[in-house]
C-alpha cells in the first residue's frame, strides 16, 4: 500500500513534468502548425541552466525556477527567430528540419560546455522526505506535482481569461483572420515559442533533480511528450496534460514492475497502435490533419 502510494506519486510527478513539455509542444503547434522538435532539448537546456546557476548561486530550486524560466523564454525567442520565421512560407517539414538542427546545436553545445557527465539541479525545496508514520513521500515529487499543477493552471488562466490569451488562441485558430482583426500575429507566434521554452525550462529544472541531465536527455522527452499529445488528441491542451499524466504513471508503474526498457517499448508500441486505430487521439476529436 505504502509503496503503491509512493509509486503513484512518482508517476504523477513524472507525468506532471511531461505535461509541461507537452504543453509547450502543443502551444507552438497550435500557433504555427509546425512541430518544434527542439522542445525536448530545450528541457535539457533548462536542466543545465539550473545546474549551472546553482553552482554560482546556491539557493533552492524554487528560487531558481523563475530565473531559469525567464532565460529560457529568451532562448525561445531566439529559436523562433532562427528556426521558424525565416521558414514561415515553406512546407511544414522545413520547420521540422530546422528545429532538429536547433536541437542538434543545443545538444552538442551542452556537450561542449558541460561534458558528457550527468549533472543535477537542486531540489525545489529540500530533499527531506515527508513522513507520516510509515509513509515517507518524496518531497521533491510532491513539489514537482504542485509546481507543475500551478504552471498548468496558470497557463490555462492565461489562455482562457486574458486578452493576451484570446489573441494567442485567435492566432492558433486562423492566422489570417487574426491578422485581419489587428492582432500582431508574429508577436503572438514569438510569444508562443517563448512560453513553450519557459515551460520547458521549468520541466528541465524539476526533472534534473530526480533524473539528472545529460546532453542527450531531450531526445526521449520529445517522444514521450509527443505520445502524450497523441493520446490527448492533437492540439488539445487539456488532452495533452491528461495524456502526459497517463504516460508518466504508466512508465513509472511498468518500470517498477518489469523494467524501464519494457515500459519504453510498450509506450512506443502503444503509439503505433493508437495512430493505427484512433489517429484523432483517445480523448475527443482534434484537427487530425494539420500542417
Amino acid at each position, binding site marked *: 500500500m505504502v509503496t503503491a502510494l509512493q509509486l503513484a506519486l512518482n508517476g504523477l510527478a513524472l507525468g506532471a513534468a511531461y505535461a509541461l513539455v507537452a504543453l509547450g509542444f502543443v502551444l507552438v503547434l497550435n500557433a504555427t502548425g509546425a512541430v518544434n522538435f527542439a522542445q525536448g532539448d530545450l528541457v535539457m537546456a533548462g536542466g543545465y541552466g539550473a545546474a549551472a546557476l546553482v553552482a554560482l548561486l546556491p539557493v533552492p530550486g524554487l528560487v531558481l525556477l523563475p530565473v531559469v524560466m525567464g532565460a529560457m523564454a529568451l532562448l525561445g525567442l531566439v529559436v523562433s527567430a532562427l528556426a521558424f520565421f525565416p521558414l514561415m512560407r515553406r512546407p511544414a517539414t522545413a520547420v521540422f528540419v*530546422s528545429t532538429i538542427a536547433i536541437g542538434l546545436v543545443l545538444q552538442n553545445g551542452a556537450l561542449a560546455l558541460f561534458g558528457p557527465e550527468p549533472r543535477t539541479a537542486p531540489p525545489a525545496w529540500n530533499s527531506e522526505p515527508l513522513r507520516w508514520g510509515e509513509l515517507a513521500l518524496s518531497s521533491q515529487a510532491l513539489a514537482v506535482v504542485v509546481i507543475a499543477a500551478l504552471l498548468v493552471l496558470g497557463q490555462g488562466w492565461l489562455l482562457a481569461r486574458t486578452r493576451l490569451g484570446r489573441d494567442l488562441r485567435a492566432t492558433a485558430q486562423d492566422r489570417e483572420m487574426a491578422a485581419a482583426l489587428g492582432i500582431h500575429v508574429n508577436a503572438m507566434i514569438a510569444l508562443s515559442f517563448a512560453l513553450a521554452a519557459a515551460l520547458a525550462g521549468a520541466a528541465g529544472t524539476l526533472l534534473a533533480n530526480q533524473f539528472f541531465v545529460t546532453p542527450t536527455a531531450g531526445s526521449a522527452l520529445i517522444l514521450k511528450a509527443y505520445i502524450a499529445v497523441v493520446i490527448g488528441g492533437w492540439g488539445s491542451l487539456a488532452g495533452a496534460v491528461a495524456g502526459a499524466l497517463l504516460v508518466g504513471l504508466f512508465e513509472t508503474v511498468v518500470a517498477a514492475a518489469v523494467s524501464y526498457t519494457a515500459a519504453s517499448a510498450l509506450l*512506443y508500441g502503444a503509439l503505433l497502435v493508437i495512430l493505427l486505430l484512433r489517429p484523432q487521439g483517445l480523448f475527443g476529436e482534434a484537427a487530425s490533419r494539420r500542417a
Partner: protein
Amino acid sequence: MTLTAEPSSPARGLGGDALWTILILAGLGTYAGSLASPYGLRVLTLAGCQALLVLGYQFVFGHAGALSLAQGAFFGLGAYTTAILATRYRWDFALTYPLSILVPLAVAAIVAIPALRLASHYFALATLGLAQVALLVAVNGGDWTGGALGLTGVPGIAVLGEVVRRGLPLAAVVWGVVALGAWASWRFAHGLTGVAYVVLRSDPIAAAAIGLDERRLRFTAFLLSAAYAGAAGALQAHTIGVVSSETLEFSVMVTCLAMTVIGGSTRIAGALIGALLLTFLPEWLRFLQGYALLAYGAALLAMIIVAPEGIAGILGDRFVRRRRAVELPSSEPVPLRGSKSATLEARSLKKSFGGVVALDGVDLVIEPGEILGLIGPNGSGKTTLANVISGLVPPDGGVLRLGSRGLLRLSAERIARAGVSRGFQTPALPPSLSALELVALARASATGKIGFLASLRGSDAGRRRRRFEAEALDLLGKVGLTAEADRSCGALPTRLAWRVEVARALALDPGLIILDEPAAGLGEHEQSELGAVLRDIASRGIAVLVIEHNMPFLLPTANRIVVLDQGRVIAKGRPGEVVRDSAVIASYLGREKIGA
C-alpha cells in the same frame, strides 16, 4: 511544329545533375586510383555507404516530401541482418545481401500501413517511434544482437567464393553499388514519374485530379528508401566489420538528414556531395573533433534557410554547357472519343458539416454531351456537390453513378480515372511545372505509366515521354494554349489558368468535366473563348458541369441550368425558363443584376 524549352522544372534541370554526377564519380575514380592512402580509401568506402543511404532518403524526403525519421533504423536493420546472418550462421554474401535489403523493406511495408496515412509530423514522429523500438531491441537483444557491445567479426564481401580485399577493390565494389543505385534513382527522377512527385509535393489534390494515387506514390518512396538504407547498412557492416547499437542511434539519422539537406534533396549529385562532404570534412578538420554534430546542426540550419535545394541546387546547370533545346515532334492528335461518357446520376445526395447541412438530398442527372450550369447563392452547396461527385468529400448518403458504375466508395483518383475530371476554383497548378509537363503527366497517368517499375523500364521517359508530350501539345492546342505550353504554371497569367485546367482534365479522356467558376475574373474575350472550348468539348460527347455566378457567360453557354439553394435543387430547366422562375428570382437572381 517545334518548340524550344528552357529548363523549367526540377525534372528538366536534371540535365546538369547528370553531368555533375559523372564529374564527381570520375573525380572519385581518379582520387581512389592514384592519390588515396589506405586510410583515405577506407573513408571513401564509408562515404559510399552514406551516399547510398542518402540516395534512398531522397525518395521519401526529397521526392515524396515526407519527413521520415526511420532511415537510420532501416540502415541499422540492414547492418544487423548482415551481421547476424554472417557471424552466427556463416551465410554467404549472395544470401545475406538480398536479405539485408528485404528485411528493412518488409518492416517498412508493415509500418507504412498506419504511418503513411498520417500528415507530416504524425508521420515523422511515428517513424521516430519505430527507430526507438529498433534501438531498444538492439540494446536488449542479448546474444542475438550482442547487446550494447554489438557484433564483431563481420567478414568482408565475398563474391563467388573470392573475398573482396579491403582498400581499392572494396571501395570499387561499394561505389559500384552506389552507381547502380544512382542509375535507378536517375530513371525514377528523370522521367514523368519524377514529375508526378513534384505534383504530389506541391498539391496532393492536383495529383488526385490526374488520377495519381497519393498513397501509392508515398508508399513506393518509403519502401525504396528502406531498401536503399538496408543495402547501405549491409555494406557498412562488411566494411568496418562491427555492428553495434550505435548504428541505430539518432545521430545516424540526423547525419543522413544533414547530408541530404546540405547536398540537395532531389538531385543525384546532391546525395554524392552531401555524403562525401560530411564524411571527409570531419577527417580534414580534426580540430572539430567531437563537435562535428554541432557544426552539422549549424550547417543544416543555415542551408535549409538559405539554400533549400542544397549545394547541388546551387550548382544546378551552372558551368554546364546549356542543353540543346528540347525539340518536340509535331503534336500527336488525341482522339477524345468520350469512351467513358455515360449518364451521371446523383440521387438524394446528403452531406452535413457538423450541424451545417450542405447537401440536403440533391438529385441531378447529367447526360453525355450536355453543358449543365450549376448556379445558386453562396453557401448553397455548389462546390460541395462538385467535391462529392469528384470524390474529394465523402457524402453522408445517397446514390452516385456514372453509367452503371457506382462512384460513392471510390477515392478521388479512382473517380478521376473512371471518367470524372475536374478543375478547381483556385487553379491547382504546380508552379514549377510547365503546362506541357503537367498535361503530359496526366496522359501518362491515364495510361498507368507512372511508378518506380515503369520508370526503370523507361515507360515514362525518352521516346515514350515525347509521345505523351506530343499528345499534351495537341490537347493544349484544343484549349488554345500552344504558344504558352512551355511556360511554367507559376509564370502563367491567371486569366490563362483555366486553359491548363481544362487541358489537364481532357488528358484523362473523361466522360464528364466539372469546372468551378472558370469564368471568374476573365475578360470578355477570354469568356467567349472559354464558351467556345466548352462547346467543342461537349460536341465530342463529353458532359460539362459548370459552377458559375456569371450569368451573362453561362446563359448562352449552358444547355440546361440547375439551381441550388440551401442544399436543395429548387429549379432546373433550359436557361430561358430558369431565369423566369419566381423561386429562382427570389432566392438568387433577384439579388444580382443579370445582363442577359
